[in-house]
């Protein structure tokens, strides 16, 4: 069976809520029912077929031909299966997802991977603010899933991250890993004040902006952890894996909060 494919007919006239397009939901629906799914967010009440041509049949593998920064909640609550977007996505991609794979071949809006407990998210382009960060009222940012951003990420990447692995091939904005509860965030470079308010967890970086004074240098050391980390990262991003040395320079913090987190500088 070929992937169930949604081909965008024209740029969407409003933000879309695509959260209903997940295998668990689509498997139970006929083609006609799928085409009638509401995806609009205004009183126009747009249906799927108003925007997309539907082809293919396999509801476990979904494909969006064409994307838009107005594609919100792509793969939200995904449990299994695969979603590929040949284009951009909007906010909350993979929100609270528990499993499966999402691949975005363009850029991603804010809050990608918020609350995601399992599965893998890959963004070929850049991600906006709070990638792997918590939404308003959400308990956690990334919470066990793997999030790979090949380009850059906006400010507050990994905010309130709880578990899992987040990789940024390029640079993040300021306050990466703010209020991290646990988990691992690795980026080629981060902006100012990374790890602000972090309780536990690891941030590994090539270079970084200003550190807040509540991170304390604790020297370089040979960490066996680094070898395990390199192996785990290598499965998703070879360049970042190569960046990780055996003996990074370690800062401990944020001592404004619990202070059991670390920033590993891999320069």
């Amino acid at each position, binding site marked *: 069976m070929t992937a169930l494919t949604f081909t965008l007919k024209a740029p969407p006239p409003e933000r879309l809520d695509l959260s209903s397009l997940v295998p668990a939901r689509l498997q139970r629906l006929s083609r006609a029912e799928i085409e009638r799914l*509401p995806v609009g967010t205004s009183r126009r009440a747009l249906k799927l077929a108003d925007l997309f041509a539907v082809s293919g049949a396999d509801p476990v593998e979904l494909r969006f031909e064409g994307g838009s920064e107005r594609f919100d909640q792509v793969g939200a609550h995904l449990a299994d299966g695969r979603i590929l977007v040949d284009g951009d996505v909007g906010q909350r991609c993979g929100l609270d997802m528990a499993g499966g794979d999402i691949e975005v071949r363009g850029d991603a809006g804010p809050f990608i991977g918020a609350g995601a407990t399992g599965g893998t998210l890959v963004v070929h382009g850049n991600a906006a603010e709070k990638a792997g960060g918590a939404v*308003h*009222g*959400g*308990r956690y940012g990334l919470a066990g899933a793997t999030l790979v951003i090949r380009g850059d990420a906006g400010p507050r990447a990994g905010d309130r991250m709880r578990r899992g692995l987040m990789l940024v091939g390029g640079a993040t904005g300021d306050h990466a890993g703010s209020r991290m509860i646990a988990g691992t965030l690795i980026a080629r470079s981060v902006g100012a004040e990374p790890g602000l308010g972090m309780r536990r967890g690891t941030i590994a970086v090539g270079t970084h902006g200003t550190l807040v004074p509540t991170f304390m240098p604790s020297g370089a050391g040979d960490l066996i952890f680094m070898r395990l980390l390199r192996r785990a990262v290598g499965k998703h991003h070879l360049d970042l894996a190569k960046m990780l040395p055996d003996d990074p320079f370690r800062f401990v913090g944020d001592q404004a909060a619990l202070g059991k987190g670390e920033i590993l500088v891999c320069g």
Partner: protein
Amino acid sequence: MLTLIRGGRVIDPAHGRDGIGEVWVEGDRIIAAPESRTPDHVIDATGMVVMAGAIDVHSHIAGGNVILSRLLLPELHVNELGDPNRPFGSACGSAAQTGRLYARMGYTTVIEPALPPSAALATHLELEDVPFIDRGALTVMGNDDQLLALLRAGESRTAVRDLTAQTLALSRGLGLKVINAGGAAAFKENVRTFDLDDEVPSYGLTSRRILTALLDAHEAVGVPHPLHVHCNNLGAPGAFETMIETMRTAEGRPIHFAHAQFYAYAAHTAGGISSAAETLCAALAAHPNVTLDVGQVVFGQTCTISLDILRQFSARGAADPKKWIIVDGDAEGGGLVPFNYKRGSVFNALQFMIGLELFLLSPDPWRVLLTTDHPNGGPFTAYPRLIHLLMDKEERTRELANLPSKAVARCGLSAIAREFTLAEVAIMTRAAPARLLGLADRGHLAPGAKADIAIYRDQADRTAMFSIAALVLKDGETIVREGAVAAVHRGRTLTLAPQADAAMTRRTETYLQDRFGRGLDSFRVPEAAFARDVFAPQPCRV
């Protein structure tokens, strides 16, 4: 318009009525069966039960803390995409939804039990936006500096009475409430536990002293609803002793205990709690001046909302999800601690069972009222299920089978065979709350009463029966039909209007100017602030 409801089983315990009969309505009132007049409209209630509209004496439906609970937990108020044709009525957690959910269960009057005098206008504006039902609010005193300073100075009972009357009138309360008397004031001085005979340090006043002064003032003002008391030590093992001692303190004066379930805990020898419901009910039997509402626990997620900031602060560790708010307000303030009552928890299961035990061991259904202390024990929408459990022993047995056996063993509930009758349900939810609030025009179906009427399809599944009323009349107008809104109705807010003393008014003006940089005008709840004629003043006792 003349309406006849006929063929239904009319249950009106206030007048000893229980049988197939007629109820006549003209305009907004129930009238005696007219001679030789033909009704304009006949409601066939065959197979149905006809009761007065239900009344809730204690439900947190408005005010600054309810607002904060929505802001603290936006994730609990996410809307299913539902009926877009009801302005805000399907918006989860909105005032409009509160009114609609009450109305569909046949509730027509609800009392907000925590009206802080310094934020009275805001609370009343929010209450105005709760549709369908009549509302009232209880003015909170007992931690405010003006009262405590007056007591510290040893001023006369008359002065305390005048201040109480002044505060009630200014805030437009329907009754007087005291919440852990002195507890919030003490907490602001870093006191972390506070019992009846503990002192608020800088005032040198015990909780008992404050409570006694308010009992006196309450009686002198002639507030129809007994002093509504939230005791010290809420939730603590052994708290039942505090409540019984507070009963003694009343010395025969009318007193109402809020959410008694949260006090009916004895310390168990093996740690944790066991039920003290039997002891509490024996004390209730011995004190005919005492009434209480239960504050039944319901399993599931909720947010506890209380002005007892000392207690809420100490409960912050139990917050689920892990976030909480403590506001040190002008007097009490507020504490919000989200909580998830779990069936698998011995403590939560005991709380659930102890509540039911209180109902079932109650010596008098006129004195033990149905509440969940919404949303503290759980949402008011659980009332139909709770009525079902009280009316059906087998249903209780099924429920208990899912609870931890250790909890079941620490509570007498499983051995209780009592089943509530429909008449007892009508007492507990209609006749008794109306009498307790001093509202003679409701809670019954005699001529002259407000035509607030709930009609239910009589069915063995009491949960279904009471969840969705077949028909609800408010002020004679059909507002709910088969659980759905038939007409949007704007209820009134019930208040007292005690006479304020001119000298106390002047003193208060000076006090407020000094403390807030604002005078009485800033604190008023003027009719001009409301979009419509909203207040319905009730008389004080003479």
